[in-house]
């Protein structure tokens, strides 16, 4: 099967495995201490984009974000994407899902006018910070394309009327398969592919790619956010039974005390 031209949309998000700190105005997460990353869903989307573009297609990456979001674009370039677009938006947290989907659609349309097509648009199922679960679906409506949500593996096939993407994901009653003609939008959930690590030559190559910079099409209407709040800390009353295998007798004492063992 021929390769596809894929555009994958990634978002620079604070690393939430570290302690979450809010900005002073409580409008965003202050990631300066924790550092930044892209979500596992999007890493898998990047991997799928690179795989599906292999053999003649283009794996392009885009983001809407502050100046620093160029780091996430370079990371995607380092693992095999070959083109990148940065919609430079200072205070990008002011862009809600409606704004972001409109801006991604604008990039796709502008590229089309320049003769560059993106047959397949890949996004994460949900962003690790705002967790809106909707940008991919809104983007599909913006562009009038079909959308599959939450797939974890993708393959390309020749259909009767052109190329088809076969998307498989976990549904409530088992694994579900979709066969959708291109162009299409698919949102990705982690778990189906192992994202590759960047190689040293990959990193060097990524540094040389010229990143296309664009301005947002319009002022954001916003995410409807009043403010962010942190949950109160939970008091701990844990009794540590010990460290390592030596704790086994103490554990079984507890199991006896709770009466959960049977002869």
């Amino acid at each position, binding site marked *: 099967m021929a390769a596809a031209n894929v555009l994958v949309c990634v978002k620079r998000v*604070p690393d939430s495995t570290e302690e979450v700190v809010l900005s002073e105005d409580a409008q965003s997460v202050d990631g300066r201490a924790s550092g930044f990353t892209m979500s596992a869903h999007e890493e898998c989307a990047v991997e799928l984009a690179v795989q599906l573009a292999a053999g003649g297609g283009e794996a392009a990456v885009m983001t809407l974000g502050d100046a620093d979001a160029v780091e996430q674009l370079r990371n995607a370039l380092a693992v095999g994407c070959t083109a990148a677009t940065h919609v430079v938006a200072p205070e990008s947290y002011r862009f809600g899902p409606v704004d972001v989907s409109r801006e991604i659609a604008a990039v796709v349309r502008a590229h089309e006018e320049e003769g560059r097509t993106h047959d397949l648009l890949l996004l994460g199922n949900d962003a690790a910070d705002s967790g809106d*679960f909707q940008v991919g679906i809104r983007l599909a409506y913006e562009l*009038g394309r*079909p959308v599959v949500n939450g797939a974890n593996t993708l393959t390309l096939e020749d259909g009767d009327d052109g190329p088809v993407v076969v998307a498989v994901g*976990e*549904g409530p009653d088992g694994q579900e398969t979709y066969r959708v003609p291109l162009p299409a939008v698919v949102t990705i959930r982690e778990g189906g592919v192992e994202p590759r690590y960047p190689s040293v030559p990959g990193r060097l190559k990524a540094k040389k790619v010229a990143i296309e910079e664009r301005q947002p099409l319009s002022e954001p209407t916003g995410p*409807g956010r009043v403010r962010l*709040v942190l949950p109160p800390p939970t008091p701990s009353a844990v009794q540590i039974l010990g*460290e390592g295998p030596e704790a086994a007798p103490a554990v079984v004492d507890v199991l006896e005390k709770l009466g959960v063992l*049977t002869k």
Partner: protein
Amino acid sequence: MILTLVETDLEGAATEVSLEAVSFGRDLSAAGNGVPVDAVVIGDVSDDLRAELAAYGVRTIHRVGGEGVAAYSGAGWASAIQQVREAAGSVVVMAAGTDRGNELMAHVAARTGASMAANVLSFSGLAPFVVTRQVVGGAAMEEMKLHERPAVFTIAGHAVEAKPADVSGAGEVVEHSPTIAPEDLVARVVSTSQPEVDESGALTSARVVVGAGRGVGGADKFEDVLELTSLLDAALGVSRVVTSAGWRPHHEQVGQTGSRITPELYIPCGISGAIQHWAGCSSAKNILAINSDAEAPMVTRATYAVIGDLHEIVPAINAEIRKRGYGG
């Protein structure tokens, strides 16, 4: 009118999280001068389901059937929900925060031009309508305004309790067979793999649950944990990392998008205790955490904990149980 999407399981019963969403809808109705609470069900409505939704205070059950919704498609099902909403004139459309619920509400919102709030925990005001929802993987919460009507949102799993109403609803079934436009059926499910045997019933009623998370390390590394499960005549519950990676089936998942367990004892091994996991296990009477990280939230919130490598600790516990003559 408040319209709640009710999802059903393979037996046709309402899922617990959908009943939680209906309960949330009732609270909203009570705050809003008693606007009626309706449900939309795509597929069959058995007498049992009808009776249950009536007990939860549902006035009208909008049953959607027909060719257009026979196979799942996000756009097709959302079109059906949207047509029910228009016919019934609802000001609120909501669902449980499952994968399907989030997907369908995003479609409904995109189709109506409304905002969508995912994983709502509570509401604090009606005019303006302000909800609090989970963000940053549950590490923070967002207060968000939903200006437009309909207000479209999902309820985070196990954030509210599913409780029958004081006064039952009529539970009248109204049939709909909406016409779905061809373009909304382009992305639809063409095949579903044989459903796995769902043993989540055993998990939710188990007296002891042994938990397994990313710390187990791989699909082929469950032997010790499974042995402990069998020695304690327990059920196995896992984190989403484990089901996403395909190490164990989805019906074993505990948490916001899995089952809510209520055992006498829960023994999470190599599970960090993210808020979405906690949502499913917080009702355990005792928690005995096994984790290499003494600072992991699961450890600090547990009743008891052992710090170290689960692959050393669990075999030692298994041996000690045997040594004392338990476990058959």
